[in-house]
């Protein structure tokens, strides 16, 4: 494991309800710096909600979430400081359609970090090269393919130099032939030591980069293990059923 032991995210006894529906039930999770975690589970199991609680896109109702030493609370300053450290990539890309690719990337550094425009653009161009689409810098998101848009979204999140990256089903909305170009970028990122939490059903990706695979069902963490162990010898019945379903065709 490429970790040095300091935990950057801690969830202690986190509970959340949507009305009567118990979407997260007593979640305890400790993520070390540099650790790559893949979260999988059936739809509606609470995996997206879990990572969306980490940057406060969703509010948890019980328990503590500590990100990089800061405990999440209702304090706006607190939330904003955590969001500066945590980058997020969404299933539906969520690029800003009225801004060019370059403007999408430089927006947060300029306005949140108060970085001079020139410097922000240099960093942005560097990142666009890393995700292999520097030539698209002056186009608008609507002119790019899904895979390109998602790579831009990853670059946009990296522009803030986050300590932690959250991926919420980053390849689920993509046409099959574009999945690989996005996963390649993510694998490269993992190789550089970024702390990553990734909700995905791409089990090949999990095998290649994950330090730990977490299986969630009905709002609980049912099982977690190193990928080799997780796929070879799942312990829980529900995990076995789930893996049987998704690996059946793969």
């Amino acid at each position: 494991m490429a970790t040095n032991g300091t935990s950057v995210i801690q969830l202690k006894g986190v509970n959340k309800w949507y009305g009567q529906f118990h979407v997260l039930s007593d979640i305890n999770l400790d993520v070390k710096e540099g650790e790559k975690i893949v979260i999988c589970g059936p739809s509606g199991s609470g995996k997206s909600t879990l990572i969306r609680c980490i940057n406060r896109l969703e509010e948890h109702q019980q328990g503590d979430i500590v990100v990089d030493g800061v405990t999440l609370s209702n304090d706006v300053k607190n939330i904003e400081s955590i969001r500066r450290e945590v980058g997020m990539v969404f299933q539906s890309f969520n690029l800003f359609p009225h801004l060019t690719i370059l403007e999408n990337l430089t927006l947060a550094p300029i306005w949140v970090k108060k970085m001079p425009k020139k410097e922000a653009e240099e960093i942005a161009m560097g990142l666009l090269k890393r995700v292999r689409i520097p030539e698209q810098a002056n186009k608008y998101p609507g002119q790019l393919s899904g895979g390109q848009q998602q790579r831009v979204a990853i670059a946009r999140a990296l522009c803030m130099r986050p300590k932690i990256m959250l991926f919420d089903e980053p390849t689920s909305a993509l046409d099959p032939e574009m999945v690989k170009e996005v996963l390649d970028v993510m694998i490269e990122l993992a190789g550089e030591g970024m702390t990553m939490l990734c909700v995905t059903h791409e089990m090949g990706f999990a095998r290649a980069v994950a330090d730990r695979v977490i299986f969630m069902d009905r709002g609980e963490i049912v099982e977690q293990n190193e990928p080799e162990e997780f796929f070879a010898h799942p312990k829980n019945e529900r995990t076995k059923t789930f893996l049987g379903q998704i690996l059946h065709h793969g």
Partner: protein
Amino acid sequence: MADIPAGERRQLAPPVDETGALGWARRNLFSGWGNGITTVVLIVAVVWLVSSFLNWAVINAVWTAPSGQECRGHGACWALIHEKYRLIFFGTYPYEQQWRPLLAILAMLTMLVLSSDRRMWNTRLIWIWTIGSFVTFLLMFGEFNISSGLIYFVALVVGAIVQSVRSTTGTPAEVWGWRAVAGVGLLGLVLRIVGIIPAWTIPIHAFTYVETGLWGGLPVTIILATYGLVFAFPYGVLLALGRRSKLPLIKGLCVGFIELIRGVPLISLLIMASVMLPLFLPSGMTIDKFLRALVAVILFAGAYIAEIIRGGLQSLPKGQFEAADAMGLNYPQKTLLIILPQALRVVIPPLINTFIGFFKDTTLVLIIGIFDFLNAANQALVDPAWAGFPAEIYLFAAFVYFCFCFSMSRYAKYLEIELNKGTRR
């Protein structure tokens, strides 16, 4: 089809449209006896209508005449317009001073045309509007007395806004300069209010003073519509944002205001502003009638604009808000940089629709005794020497209104294309 190997399949050209004008007419106008007869009857009717209108409006029209008597028995009496155009355009503004409202109209049109160009949408816009408004009102009023209180207030507001906008991008010296301006404004206001420093004014006496009660005609329509909408727009944006606020008090106030204002006719709001407001003011204090009408228009238009913008806000996918949040943008940044630019693009057509509606609705200020363009035109009918030609007057007024409204409509079209450049696939 399934038997042809893929390599031998030819790309088929689309079927040729071999109709032409005659073919089109045969297919659409004369496809049967019934359609043929209908077409012929309608063509005859249209030709007859157009020719009799042209007869009346052009061929038999009287272009100049000393009085309405000479017009009788002929076609359109355009001589009436020729005789009364200054009353129609400038209302009761002192006759020998009417070059001033004319120049004011030109100043305002210049201002509007300049600011409709997208290349001007930066700090230049502020200068265009400051200079344009100053020239317009100086021409209309003839003189200003700029009070010290106003100057302090402007210094405070401008200093505060500019320093907050430039705080991240400007040099420290510049930012502190603006802070100093705001500070001087605040200090002046406070000292003035507690009475330590005396009041002073900057008098600008360019021409003879003309009070707003004498204003009339086209300048009144343009001023009411322009400044009404310019102030109603940001106000409507704030109302729309407030209505979507999570804070119950702000949301409640905005919903209450919007529903209240939308629920009453503009006329009753104008009458309230004109008749009831003075009753609540301390005796001796008066607010200009024109200003009251303007405020009523702003409040009314604001409520309508708010609902249109709310529609735009609701059309945005949730992901846009979440992405902005996840990047750590705060509420003003998220709203100004991400949400509003997208929401406003969506609502350009209904927004311009409302603008056009309000441009025409300003004519209701007649109720409180202000003579805008249409009402000034109406006044031209009162003269007994020229009695009996309402059609000419109203056609003329309709033509002028049409020019303005059609320009707005074309501009909306241009804006839509311009703003969506590149963002479409």
